[in-house]
């Protein structure tokens, strides 16, 4: 299991390769990569700055990943989340889960993204054509996370 919070970019192919190297018991790997969009709420976005709470971020991501491993039979979990200044098209986050079974891989990957969106202490500041603004939390994200309540 690997959790990384970093300013630098990551290489999806290299991460995938390292994640699956030498494994022969894995039937499926589900992955999600989140990217900066060039438009949000009708305004064009020129950049996004991700602020986070160092220490708590890693702690929360570890807790969420452990929870995923408790709920599904997973061979491994990878979470990478960037902070700092990003531009449209840049990668923000990558989550990968490996399991013998594809349902477990798919569900745990989505669970991780849903929980990460509501529990990991990151905040997005968008630079848009209408000025700078802090992204507001979405009710749809809370609803998505609520799906997984036990």
């Amino acid at each position: 299991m690997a959790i990384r919070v970093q300013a630098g970019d990551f290489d999806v192919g290299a991460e995938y390769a390292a994640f699956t190297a030498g494994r022969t018991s894995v039937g499926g790997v589900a992955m999600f990569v989140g990217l900066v969009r060039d438009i949000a709420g009708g305004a064009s976005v020129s950049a996004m700055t991700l602020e986070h709470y160092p220490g708590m971020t890693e702690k929360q991501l570890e807790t969420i990943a452990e929870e995923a491993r408790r709920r599904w039979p997973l061979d491994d979990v990878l979470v990478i989340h960037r902070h700092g200044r990003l531009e449209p098209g840049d990668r923000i986050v990558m989550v990968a889960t490996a399991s013998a079974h594809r349902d477990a891989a798919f569900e745990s990957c989505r669970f991780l993204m849903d929980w990460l969106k509501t529990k990991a202490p990151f905040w997005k500041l968008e630079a848009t054509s209408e000025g700078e603004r802090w992204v507001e939390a979405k009710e749809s994200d809370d609803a998505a996370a609520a799906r997984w309540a036990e």
Partner: protein
Amino acid sequence: MKILYFAWLRSKIGVPTETVELPAEVATAGALVEWLKTRSPRHAEALANSKVVKVAVNQEHVPYDHPISSTDEVALFPPVTGG
């Protein structure tokens, strides 16, 4: 007690962190938010809507009735928007 502010709470209050001497009667996360409002007009404005002021104690999300003590690391921030 050390308080950390993030995102627009940080920019509205104007500092990323401050150290406060907590009165004995301020014993919960919610009481702390109320007490912080009295420190300055900036605090009062930033913390006005408690629905969007979240609290973490020692890097864990907590509800407003969670107890706090002077040795805790307390953070205040808006709802998270990562991912």
